Structure formats: C-alpha cells, structure tokens
C-alpha cells in the first residue's frame, strides 16, 4: 500500500489522530503510519475488541475481551450490541427488545437506560467504555497520549444516532474530529482512486446495520452520489434466526424451553456463530451445545443455511436498487464493488451482490478491518498527512420542519452533499407573541408523525409586536459529520436570535458534561484506589521481612535505641496502612526501610559468615 498514500514527513511530531470503527459486535482502532493505515493490536495482540461491557461484582467496569468472558458467567451484568440502541428512546426499540436481552431501567423515554447490576448506563456511556479500551490500547502501542479521533458510523445513522456517537467519544476523553460513514471509510482504505476514475458501490453488512453507498472517484475526490440502508438489518439477524431454530429443536428433544435462560442462550449464540462462520469455508458443519449434562447436536449444510437466510439477504437488495436509482445509474455503470463487514464472507451474500451489480466484488482487505483502516486514512487527511484525497459525503435522510396540519416541508433533501444548508423565515401568529417553536424532523414521509422527530427549536425573547411583523431568519446547517446546527437572526435588527434546543432523543449537553466529570472522578478514584492497594502490598512485604528478622541474631545485635527507632517506624506504617493516600503509605515504608538498613546489613553479614562456616564444614 505504500505507494498509495502520499505522506508529509515533516508532520511526524504532530499529535496522533486515531481512526476508530465502533462496531455493533467488534470495535477496532487504527492509525496512519508512514507506510499506510495500520490496525493497533491490544495487549494480547488481538486486533478486534468485542463491543461488550460488563460490571464486575466489585463494581469495576470492564470492556472488550474480559467482558466477553463475563457474558456467560454473569449475563445480567453484561451488555453487547449496544450500538443498536444509540440515539433511541424506549419507544423505538421494540424489535431490539424482542431479540436481545437488554434490561431497560426507568426513565428511558428519550434515552435508553440499561440496568447492569445496581447501576444504570446510557448507550453512549457503554460505548465510552469500549472507546476507552481502544484509547488505552492505542496509547500503550504508540507510547503517547491519544486524545483525538475519527469515529465511523453507519451511513444511514440519523442525527440523534450520530450525536450519541459523538457523546460517547467525549465521555471517553476523545475529541471526535469527524464522524465518517462506514462505507465511505471503506472505500478510502481500498485506495481505488489510484487505479482510475470510476464509479464504485460499497456494500456494508455489519453486525447490526446495513449500508449501501455509491461513489464517483475523480482525481482523489471520493464523491458520494447516493446512500441507502437499513439500521435494523445485520449479521445479528442471521444469528437470531439460527438460535430460534435451535431453540425449537431443543424444546422438542429435551422437552424444555431454554430460551429464557440467559446463560444457555449465550452458549447457543456462540455455537451458531461458529457454525455460521464455518459454513463460509466448508459445505457442512454442526451446531453443538452442551448444557447441564445434556447435549444438542445438529448438522447444518450450506444449502439449508442459505435457504434459511435467503430473505435476510434479499432485504439488502431493495436499498441497493433504491440507491442506484437515486444515483441515476444502472447496475452496468458500476465499475467496482467493495464488500465490508464480517457477514459479507457468506458466499450467498457475495453471490447476491455480484448478480445485482454485475461486477465481481473486491475482497482483498479483511472485511472486519477495512472500516477502521479507512477511518485512519481520514484521520491522516485531517492531520494534513494525506493531501491527495478528499471525501465528499451526503446526508442519508431529508431534513424538514413540521408545518400546518402536521405536514413536512423539506428543507434539505437526502443525498445532498454535506455540509449543506437551508434558510427559512419565520414570523409570529398572534400579537405580542414572544416565542416561535420549530419542530425539525428527519425522514422521507409526508407527515411529521411518520418521520423521526429530531428536535424542537424555541426562538425565544422575540420583541412583542403585531402578528406577522417579526422576521426571523433561521439557518439549518448540516455539518461534515451529518449533524444539524441551527442559528437564527432577527432580520429587523440584524441581531443574533437566541435558540433553545430540545433534542427529542439523546442526552443534553449538560448530561454529557456531567458524565464526563463523573468518568474523570471515577477514573481518578480508580487510580488512587489502585495505587493505595499497591502500596499496601509493598508494606506487607517489608513488615513480613521485619517479622522474620526479629527472630534472627542480628536483631539482638542492635542497640536498644536502634530497636526502639525501628518499632516506632513500624507503628507509623501500621497507622497509615489503611489510608487511601498511597504517598503517605510509601513515605512510611521508606522511613522503615531507612531505619532498618543496619539490621539488614547485620543479617547479610551473619548470613555470609554462616555460609562461610558451612563451606568450611
């Protein structure tokens, strides 16, 4: 890949920006080194960090592989696939609740709250724990602090889902410099622009979401022409289909419904995922489960597997056709197809894509890693290290405002290149009216109630005047992250008009700030606690040694004064032993160390002389 990326060597000392694929099932962190994008491995050399978070019995929160272990041991305190809940309220996760063992706490109307043990977490907080793990891995690997990141999101994510992802970054102590759409990131990783100008389609079937994007490449510019997708469709659906079938089998074989048993279902989930993955390489495999002394075994052929999942694969093709239509292209005009996401390893998926686009898909890069690699390239673009590429992405959903009768007036159409903006002029309806409320929605439907409510903007403190006299210009601007910004101006005075934002879903700025503070405090608490514990371990070591030394002749060789000094130092250490101030403990340890110097010397000498005696004998 080295020839693909133009690197500015003078930029080597700038702070590093990492690229992060925050996935439904797994997450990865990558960075741009001098030869191109690289995935950063964890401490055990693992490249994928499972997007799983668990609260241990002692209250410590763990993420990644340690949490994956706990998924079976303590399923009630462990959560996965939380990306499906990002930017949602409890009323729009009906399907997720049916298929996933999420435990929802009170007060989940505008932000879902998950119960893990005796604590509750919002999805951004859960994701922040995964991000923190990735941040730590990157810092350990690169040997320097990492505070800035590019994070990828499904292209079809709405405003609230994007905002939730940005919030997760902030809570984890990362400045999110850009949200990049996953399929677009993947196209960057492939570096297809070096080969020729042309049109490419990126088919991205992830763990929980499906995206299709069509791009035009021209002299290093990646211009997205159209995007489409389904945020309720992914590899998880395939797993759930297989689990359902196995559960029915088990019910009839064992006469027992184990579907309510979280531990058993987790074991079964692992078993079907393994079988699914094997079927990409062999024509027949087995689903095997051993549970409480009973065994379940079922042969699964690729043929049957393909029949079972045919409708799921078919569901991805509708968005592909819509995307082609929106781009104004026929399948023959697609020059290259890129596959992204672990589920695209399934031969049936590859076949379906090849048939639709009439082009053999690219599979050279690992479909699990290609998004993270692309995020690293985008990080390189932002850092100024990669200067020959530029991404021009689009907004996946139309933005509109609710007008009379609940009808939507569209302001920015979907597939508009972002940043994009629109202005509208608002006025008052009654004499002396001080506020105007604007309801902003996202979606393609005619009626506001059928679209996704985004936020309500309150134009406040309007000067009282007769109805229809006020003229307030409101500017709606979707930034390069696909997130809406709203500003308003009083056209009569030219002054900035204050706008109060009430997001329909998601956290307010104040809530995110509080979470950042809490996480800092928690992290500091954790560090202090750990340091005190380590100091106590050291104290134990020296006190044990002293105990032993007192049995030695060397102890008796000391003067009374010397022995008293040592006992005083020991008492001082015992007094601070349970303090949470590790510095205090360490000072006392050092003091005891100093006053026992002579004792240690005497012991050494007597040991040496004993040893010499021994050799003489």
């Amino acid at each position, binding site marked *: 890949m080295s020839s693909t990326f133009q690197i500015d060597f003078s930029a080597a000392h700038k702070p590093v920006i990492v690229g992060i694929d925050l996935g439904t099932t797994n997450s990865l962190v990558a960075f741009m080194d001098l030869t191109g994008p690289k995935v950063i491995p964890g401490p055990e050399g693992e490249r994928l960090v499972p997007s799983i978070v668990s609260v241990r019995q002692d209250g410590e929160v763990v993420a990644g592989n340690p949490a994956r272990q706990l998924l079976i041991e303590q399923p009630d305190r462990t959560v996965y696939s939380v990306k499906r809940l990002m930017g949602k309220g409890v009323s729009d996760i009906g399907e997720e609740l049916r298929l996933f063992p999420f435990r929802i706490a009170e007060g989940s109307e505008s932000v879902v709250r998950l119960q893990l043990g005796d604590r509750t977490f919002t999805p951004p907080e859960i994701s922040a724990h995964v991000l923190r793990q990735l941040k730590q891995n990157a810092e350990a690997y690169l040997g320097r602090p990492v505070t800035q990141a590019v994070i990828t999101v499904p292209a079809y994510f709405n405003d609230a889902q994007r905002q939730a992802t940005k919030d997760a970054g902030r809570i984890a102590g990362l400045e999110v410099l850009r949200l990049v759409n996953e399929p677009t990131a993947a196209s960057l990783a492939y570096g297809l622009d070096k080969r020729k100008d042309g049109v490419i389609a990126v088919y991205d079937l992830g763990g929980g979401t499906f995206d299709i994007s069509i791009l035009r490449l021209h002299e290093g510019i990646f211009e997205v022409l159209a995007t489409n997708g389904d945020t309720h469709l992914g590899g998880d659906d395939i797993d759930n289909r297989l689990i359902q079938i196995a559960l029915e089998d088990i019910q009839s074989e064992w006469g027992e419904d184990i579907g309510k048993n979280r531990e058993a279902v987790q074991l079964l989930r692992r078993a079907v995922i393994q079988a699914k993955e094997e079927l990409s390489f062999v024509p027949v495999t087995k689903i095997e489960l051993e549970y409480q002394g009973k065994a379940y075994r079922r042969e699964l052929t690729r043929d049957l597997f393909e029949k079972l999942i045919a409708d799921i694969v078919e569901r991805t093709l509708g968005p592909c056709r819509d995307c082609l239509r929106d781009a104004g292209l026929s399948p023959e005009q697609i020059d290259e197809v890129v596959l992204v996401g672990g589920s695209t390893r399934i031969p049936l998926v590859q076949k379906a894509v090849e048939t639709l686009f009439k082009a053999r898909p690219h599979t050279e890069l690992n479909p699990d890693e290609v998004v993270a690699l692309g995020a690293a390239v985008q990080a390189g673009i932002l850092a100024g290290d990669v200067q020959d590429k530029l991404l021009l992405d689009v907004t996946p959903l139309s933005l509109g405002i609710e007008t009379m009768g609940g009808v939507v007036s569209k302001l920015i159409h979907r597939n508009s*290149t972002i940043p994009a903006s629109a202005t509208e002029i608002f006025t008052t309806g009654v004499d002396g009216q001080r506020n105007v409320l604007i309801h902003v929605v996202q979606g393609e439907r005619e009626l506001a109630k059928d679209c996704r409510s985004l936020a309500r903007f309150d134009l406040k403190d309007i000067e009282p005047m007769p109805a229809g006299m006020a003229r307030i210009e409101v500017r709606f601007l979707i930034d390069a992250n696909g997130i809406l910004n709203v500003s308003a101006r009083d056209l009569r005075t030219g002054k900035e008009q204050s706008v109060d934002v009430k997001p329909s879903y998601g956290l307010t700025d104040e809530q995110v700030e509080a979470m950042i503070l809490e996480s800092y405090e928690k992290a500091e608490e954790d560090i202090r606690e750990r340091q005190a514990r380590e100091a106590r371990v050291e104290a134990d070591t020296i006190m044990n040694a002293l105990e032993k030394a007192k049995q030695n002749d060397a102890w008796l060789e000391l003067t009374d004064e010397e022995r008293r000094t040592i006992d005083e130092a020991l008492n001082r250490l015992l007094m601070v032993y349970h303090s949470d101030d590790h510095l205090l403990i360490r000072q006392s340890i050092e003091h005891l160390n100093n006053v026992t110097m002579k004792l240690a010397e005497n012991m050494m000498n007597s040991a040496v002389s004993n040893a010499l005696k021994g050799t003489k004998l």
Partner: protein
Amino acid sequence: MEGTRCWQCGQPTAGALFCPSCNHLQQPTSDYYKFFGLPQKLNLDPGDLQKRFYSLSRQLHPDRFTRSTPTERQYSLEATAILNDGYRVLRDPVSRAEYVLRQRGFDVGEQRSKDVPPELLEEVFELNMALEELKVGDESAREQLEESRARFRSMRDEVDSQLQQLFVRYDESADQDSANAILQEIRGVLNRRRYIRNLVDQVERELAA
C-alpha cells in the same frame, strides 16, 4: 465584497476567498455565481461547473482546516455549505433559472399551480376520466394513460427547448429592461413546466401501481 478587508491582517481582499496578503480564508459570499467565479448566465457548461466544484472543494472543505483557528474553521464550514448548496442549484437548469429569478426580485414561491393552463384544459379533463376508469378496474384505460404519458412527455420536452431558447436570449440581452422582460417570460414557462411535470409524475405513479 470588493471593499472588504481581511479579518486577520486588515489588508484589502478584493473579494477573494483567500486573503492575497496573508492567505487566510475570508467570510464567503453567499451569491452562488460570484462564489463559483461565474457571470450570471443561464446557460452553463456542466463540465466547467463540475471542475470548479471539485477545485473549490479541495481548497475549502472543513477537512483542510482541522488545525486552523476557530474563525477559519467556521468560515470553511460556511463556505463549503454555500459551495455544495450552490452546486446543487446551478447544475440543474430549472433550479438555476429559479435562483436567478429570485435574485432579480421575482416571486417564485411554491405555487400549487391549481389553475390549469387553458391550453391544457381538455387534456387534463381526459386524463382525469382515464384515471377514474382505471380505479374502477377498467384496464382499457391503461392504454389511454400511456398515450397521455407520451403526450405529456413530449410537451415537457417542448417546454424545455422553449426554456433553452429563452436562456440564450437572456444571456445575450443588451440591457436590464430586456433581461427582466425575458425573465418574466421564463417565469411563465417554468410555471407551465411545473404543471406538466406534476401530470407526468401522476400518470407514471398510476401506471407503476
């Protein structure tokens, strides 16, 4: 913008996007034609427009200003939004003409165009009959609808070539008064076009159903 000075160094910028003295990004103009560096013509070369769009994107995109000051970052965001909005408007002949009309003070609000243009009265009457027949299950109406579609499409093409001629006349107009007279004409043709387009859409929807 001609009299403006650089926010950073205070030197005159002569309306340039980047200060000629210190190279800092300036507050962008919101006039699409000026932004693209084009005269206000109704006929544009799409290839040239695309070239300008790519070139300006490379210079102005927020990706290029990550490490810049907040002011420049804000200008970059605004400039890129204007660039993208402008490209969307200017590359489509109809939205381009509507933009020029609005810039010249003509009202092109979302006319519901409920009033049928008189020359189309008979056509629309027959169309409505056919649609009714199709609704009650008379498949023979389908043929009639297909005929209507072909007729409406050719009407649309006719209107488009009419527009094209008006564009040429506007671009060649010698003075403001004659230009405005042509714009007035264009406005009428655009209304008619909108009406025909709605008819085409309606027929196509029915035929697809």
